[in-house]
């Protein structure tokens, strides 16, 4: 009886809760790598599924070797050139796609005639699987970064575009009428009402678009390039070096998280006016 209670007490102390969430998250990651390790290292487990002890490692890689590869990349410095290229492509695609989506979205949303005219084409362009444009972009823009940026831009543009379009449509008619009565000119309405209102929608979409800019860069590299993390993965795949492929995926994931975090920071700074859930500060 006593023992049960004390073990219960122990569990209630270490169970996942507000204070130790990070610890549990790290633990889950460690457990994932541990299981991966146990299941793939040749000879550690009796071969249950594969007839050959080396096959598991061949298909799924070995975490220690994967981490070793990542370490080598960063320690010996071979990755930086490729990573830099991929991030630069992502950044350019993100900025160009966001700005053009913002400008064209605002313009179309405030121009009913133009928007009615372009409507079917926008829908068509959006529903098209735009990744298939990658080969065309390679032909147009060559195998250097321009073709990858172009692919990323087509992915980012539409997300931002549709969000801006929606944001402008959803401007509160009362706020709009109020601003007009307070004396806003058309330009001032655009700057002080439409753009801020659309920005909240744009920020909601930025997490998506930064991810897709990354996708555009990596897929573009994967389809034909001479630099970039996608190129590293492609090379490794060609020689069935599965550990390097996984190392590439690991690095990409880590940097996608970093990019997302940066967007989150920017959002927090610029969107202070938005009520957050659970925020009850009133006076």
């Amino acid at each position, binding site marked *: 009886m006593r023992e049960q209670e004390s073990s219960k007490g122990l569990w209630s102390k270490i169970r996942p809760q507000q204070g130790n969430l990070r610890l549990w998250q790290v633990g889950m990651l460690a457990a994932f790598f541990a299981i991966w390790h146990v299941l793939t290292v040749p000879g550690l487990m009796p071969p249950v599924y594969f007839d050959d002890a080396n096959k598991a490692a061949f298909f799924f890689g070995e975490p220690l070797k994967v981490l070793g590869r990542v370490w080598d990349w960063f320690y010996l410095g071979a990755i930086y050139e490729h990573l830099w290229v991929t991030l630069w492509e992502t950044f350019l695609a993100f900025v160009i796609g966001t700005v053009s989506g913002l400008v064209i979205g605002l313009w179309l949303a405030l121009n009913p005639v133009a928007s009615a005219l372009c409507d079917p084409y926008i829908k068509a362009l959006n529903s098209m699987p735009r990744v298939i444009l990658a080969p065309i972009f390679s032909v147009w823009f060559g195998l250097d970064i321009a073709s990858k940026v172009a692919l990323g831009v087509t992915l980012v543009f539409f997300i931002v575009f549709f969000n801006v379009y929606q944001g402008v449509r959803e401007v*509160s008619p*009362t*706020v709009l*009428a*109020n*601003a*007009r*009565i*307070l*004396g*806003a*000119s058309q330009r*001032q309405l655009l700057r*002080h*009402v439409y753009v*801020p*209102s659309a*920005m*909240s929608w744009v920020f909601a979409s930025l997490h998506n678009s930064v991810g897709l800019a990354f996708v555009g860069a990596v897929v573009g590299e994967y389809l034909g390039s001479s630099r970039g993390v996608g190129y590293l993965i492609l090379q490794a795949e060609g020689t069935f070096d599965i550990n390097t492929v996984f190392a590439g995926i690991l690095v990409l994931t880590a940097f996608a998280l970093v990019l997302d975090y940066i967007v989150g920071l920017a959002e927090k700074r610029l969107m*202070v*006016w*938005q*009520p957050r859930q659970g925020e009850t*500060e*009133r*006076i």
Partner: protein
Amino acid sequence: MDSRDTPALALENITVTFAARDAKDTRYTAVQDATLLVAPGEFVSVVGPTGCGKSTLLNIAVGLLEPSAGTVKVFGEPLAGLNRNAGYLFQTEALMPWRTALDNVTVGLEFRGVTREESVIRAEDWLARVGLAGHGHRYPHQLSGGMRKRVALAQTLILDPQIILMDEPFSALDIQTRQMMENELLELWSANRKSVVFITHDLEEAISLSDRVVVLSAGPGTRPIGEFTIDLPRPRDVAEIRLTPRFIELHTKIWRAMKDEVLKGYARTRIQ
């Protein structure tokens, strides 16, 4: 004509007909042949049953809507476009949520090209006048409903409009906050008398605030059916004045005129 006799706002024989966008032959006449004159410095309340087109009249007066027939004159001049002499207090939230209270108050000055320093000084002053000194840095979602209304009031009054149009501005507030706001409004108004058109469905509110109460008929085809001069002494306290015999007398008289229309309006909403 003597300029003092010129009404600040004159709605003459206004008719407003809305045509349904998809079926042009289904029309709805919200306002029919309505005339409303407001003298400079006069506080006029317009009461009427729900859905009778009170807000439509205000939208006409500010120039957001154009009447199907009739004329709008502002200080004798026919109105074209938005009414630059008018301020408008909305029933629903009209503050810009992405601006702080202070920046919401300065926005009208900003639109007029007043420098930032000057508009901030004037806005701070107005925030203090509506009892919000020190709250300028807060965003609308961090303020209570009553405080947001005060910010809206400051936002409108800082531009010193000659005509103030109010569309049930306090209807969303609880009764105590509401009476406080009404007293504050009267104080601000008596310090600098402008023409006020105050729309409400609350007869007590109308009587306690106004110089004159105009009763509208039930829609469709709303028009004024009665006018009552409120001869209660000023300054008034809106909570106390409700207990005076003269107030009750006026209330009974106006309510008698309103009752049939209210019942009509109620019957109409029930059918719908």
